[in-house]
């Protein structure tokens, strides 16, 4: 299926959970934050939040800034 990931189209087998998506992307769930369709996803919901065709997912972390 195709989702919108960090602003770009992204092909992946799905539906899948946020947890699975992060694992697939090799992203350590600690020290990132995830938005699913404009809603922040609490960390304890990663296992239960399903990402479906066309969903928007944002994964952010901290970078240098002032």
């Amino acid at each position: 299926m195709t989702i919108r990931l960090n602003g770009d189209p992204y092909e992946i087998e799905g539906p899948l959970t946020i947890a699975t998506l992060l694992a697939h992307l090799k992203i350590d769930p600690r020290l990132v934050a995830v938005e699913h369709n404009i809603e922040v996803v609490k960390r304890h919901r990663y296992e239960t939040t399903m990402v479906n065709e066309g969903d928007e997912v944002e994964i952010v972390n901290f970078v240098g800034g002032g």
Partner: protein
Amino acid sequence: MNSDPLVIAGRTFGSRLVVGTGKYPSHAVMADAHVASGADMVTVAVRRVNLTDRSKESLLDYIDRDRIFILPNTAGCYTAEDAIRTARLGREVGLSNWVKLEVIGDEQTLFPDNIALLEATRVLVREGFVVLPYTNDDPVICRKLEEAGAAAVMPLGAPIGSGLGIQNPNNIRIIKAQARVPVIVDAGVGTASDAAIAMELGADGVLMNTAIALATDPVAMATAMKLAVEAGRLAFRAGRIPMRLYASPSSPVEGLVTASTP
């Protein structure tokens, strides 16, 4: 043990200098500069994870979180909505429910949009954030932000990254005279004396990034800024001499072994 700490929203900081994490030649230099600066609060930006290049080492690996408090910011946001959304994500990373709130109103000056800033402050305060808004040197908007629940007000000294120093000292002095929350001068510092001046005006702290990160020697400049903030604070408390147009002798005018008189 610091007898004159900076206290914001009940949290005590040993240093009155808050620094950034952007524009450094390397993460390693940044880490050294942070140590040199003595800062125990640093601000970070919230951005999309780089998916194409996972190798990229994490900024946080270079920040000693046992010693340094993380202050996520909303730099780059041009609407209240974007700033609120970014603040929420920053909090969700799980290190802090504080936010250096920026809502930019102009791309050239990066001056704040104070109306959107006030709106975003109200929303985030309601959601339990500790909000430190970056604003301009306007005592009226500073008071409104304070009334909206801001934990501190952070008027700019000059445009971000301009290095011009405090452009309007009187406004900073007036803001401090009226504020009941800490006043942090945010942006505009170029060199050590600028930081000292901010503190001599009565500011409770100074936040800077470019002046250190882009100095030829960031670590040396970080040390300079640490000393300058302490110097300015001490001078403010020590009670400076008044200014006078003419001179006043430092040595006795009696007991001279001379015939001459002026």
